[in-house]
């Protein structure tokens, strides 16, 4: 009677507990639930990716650097990224070291995409060298081409106002909050307007590569500043 009732209730409790544990285990086995949260192991797997660059002679032929310059470049590159490739996280980290006051992650993202020419999510040494070769040893035409590529976020051949605004905001972000004069809210937008006024010849709201190159070649300042970093390496 009462005792029997209670005893069976006790057994029922045990049964329920056992069933709950078993179902949890089943779900875990099926992979629907994850008990442990270690993504460290995942990261470790990624780190074992290795990439060896092409031969020195080949790179020398493809780029405009000498052997010695390539050696110096590679030493620095390999020091920071022993695995041989730079992924976006590392890239952002490295770039942010140079701009401690502001937030350079957005701009680094665009820069990464500009360097990652084959769009595989990582910048290998070849990409790195090719990019630097254009920037440091290329003709003005090539440099302007590269800059256009940077601004054209979706790589469709046109720079729209939105794309330009994104780029501009990213650049202003790198400055940070403590500037003089204080950054105004619409400064990027203003800057974009100025840019488009200068570059957009046919006023169709987008800048094409030809318009871009033409306008830049007419501007003395821009031409001069393109030569600024000739002897970086």
């Amino acid at each position, binding site marked *: 009677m*009462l005792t029997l009732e209670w005893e069976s209730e006790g057994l029922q409790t045990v049964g329920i507990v056992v069933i709950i544990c078993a179902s949890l285990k089943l779900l875990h086995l099926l992979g629907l639930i994850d008990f442990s949260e270690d993504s460290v192991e995942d990261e470790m797997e990624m780190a074992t990716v290795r990439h060896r660059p092409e031969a020195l002679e080949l790179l020398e032929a493809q780029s405009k650097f000498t052997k010695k310059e390539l050696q110096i470049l590679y030493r620095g*590159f390999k020091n920071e990224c022993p695995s041989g490739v730079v992924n976006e996280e590392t890239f952002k980290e490295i770039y942010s070291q*140079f701009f401690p006051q502001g937030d350079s992650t957005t701009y680094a993202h665009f820069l990464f995409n*500009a360097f990652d020419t084959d769009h595989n999510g990582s910048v290998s040494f070849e990409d790195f060298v090719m990019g*630097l070769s254009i920037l440091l040893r290329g003709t003005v035409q090539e440099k302007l081409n590269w*800059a256009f590529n940077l601004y054209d976020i979706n790589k469709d051949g046109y720079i729209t106002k939105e794309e330009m605004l994104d780029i501009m905001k990213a650049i202003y972000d790198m400055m940070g909050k403590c500037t003089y004069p204080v950054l105004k809210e619409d400064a990027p937008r203003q800057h974009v307007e*100025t840019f488009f006024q200068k570059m957009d010849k046919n006023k169709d709201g987008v800048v094409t590569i030809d318009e871009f190159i033409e306008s830049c070649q007419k501007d003395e*300042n821009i031409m001069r500043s393109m030569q600024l970093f000739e002897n970086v390496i």
Partner: protein
Amino acid sequence: MAAGVAAWLPFARAAAIGWMPVANCPMPLAPADKNKRQDELIILNVSGRRFQTWRTTLERYPDTLLGSTEKEFFFNEDTKEYFFDRDPEVFRCVLNFYRTGKLHYPRYECISAYDDELAFYGILPEIIGDCCYEEYKDRKRENAERLMDDNDSENNQESLPSLSFRQTMWRAFENPHTSTLALVFYYVTGFFIAVSVITNVVETVPCGTVPGNKELPCGERYAVAFFCLDTACVMIFTVEYLLRLFAAPSRYRFIRSVMSIIDVVAIMPYYIGLVMTNNEDVSGAFVTLRVFRVFRIFKFSRHSQGLRILGYTLKSCASELGFLLFSLTMAIIIFATVMFYAEKGSSASKFTSIPASFWYTIVTMTTLGYGDMVPKTIAGKIFGSICSLSGVLVIALPVPVIVSNFSRIYHQNQRADKRRAQKKARLARIRVAKTGSSNAYLHSKRNGLLNEALELTGSPEDEHLTKTTSLIESQHHHLLHCLEKTTGLSYLVDDPLLSVRTSTIKNHEFIDEQMFEQNCMESSMQNYPSTRSPSLSSHPGLTTSCCSRRSKKTTHLPNSNLPATRLRSMQELSTIHIQGSEQPSLTTSRSSLNLKADDGLRPNCKGSQITTAIISIPTPPALTPEGESRPPPSSPGSTTNIPPIGSNIVKVSAL
């Protein structure tokens, strides 16, 4: 900016071309890279091991030795490399710091050696990477504690010259080994603590019956005896407590300390009992108070190091103990509830309420299992078994932490004691070595004097006496010599060999064989190479004057102003003495280089032109310095002593 990233600066600058088309204002000029050297390999030779690296690697940290121009001081023109006379092992870590930007601390390295190297290379230890920083800090702290320990024990063992009575008493209490009285006190109190505890225990043992068939405890049967014992113990404890209170440097702190509280708690019940015996109402409380008498056993912690360590461990593991308690409480409540509801159905169950089940849970979790409460239902049994299994786990978890803490503290203490014991032996050995080296000066002085004597006499056969001294030694001796000349004093040189030798060199016809056999050491006029005594310096050779007590001897002092006869020379000497000194104790010979010699000599030069000094040459190395015997000082007028065998005194007067 991290140095490794400096390698990416060219890249960042190149990428800046992306800003050019959108720039509003013209760009500033780029800094010209004058002095653009091709990156070159530089060789760093550290104690023979060659390390090579790029110059730019080192220049990443320009505020360190290797990164700045400071390393040019170490540049070796002949081999075109930088030579450092330091440890190559640690240099490996330092160079890796330049290469990778992370400074690591190798575990096998001694912490102070590592610190020294870092200080040399101008690297702050704070930049040690996170991977090694913990280890570094731990070792450093350990080392600092050890040094502080040693310093403390040193300070403790210094016999401070003037301690007030109160301070002596306090020291005696804290450290019973300082004096016999303290030791006696220590043992007496220990004995009385033991007596008191044993009486407390024996009091309750039933011994014998009284007519009336009642088993009486001994305490009531021999009430008077026990009372007397108790009184005696409490007297002793009270006296001890008051003495400690009197001697304590900070009474307030002493009152608040744990040991004093234990003392008070130990003796309070007696006094309270004295006051309250008549009042029946509070007799219950009085009985309770007697319980506190057992706290006297804690007084043993003054006598036992281990007990103190245990207490300290428990205090330092307070958090682990707290965690243990907390987790046990949680588990007890959970299991008690479960057991209660599981056993609710069974008839005549002892699990009447949840608090009642607490007892079962505790007994089961600690695996005691008295068996006074057992579950009867199946569910109860299942949960009961789970309870006991989990109990083992919950208790086993924090216990190793407490144990390891105790072990660490205990071993530290053992090590401290061992170190203190070894320290004395170590210091003694170091002292012997040091005095050995300080005698070297005097040895060489003797040899120097001998050399001159030998040169003057031209006897070649004794050259083997001269010891070849290193350049550093001879320079050091020259320095001391200059000091002597500056002040006009001189160090005492004590050597039996010299006078014996000198006596054999020349004028041995004047030496009494008797005296020679008796190994007389007394004065021989030493030819001190002093420019102030031309008369003596022109003296062609050493002259010996034997022990002046031997009247048979004659002293030969050619070309000297002093009379040839020994007696007269003695007179002369004595006049010199009288003129020069007013303190006969001057003639005490000293053979150590320490300041005592100077201090003792200074009263001698009361501005008089004549300074008399006693130079005693150190005993030959076969004898230990401590084994040297000193001749007793002689009376002012006489320069004579009958010296004990084995030590000679050479008197020199510097005119």
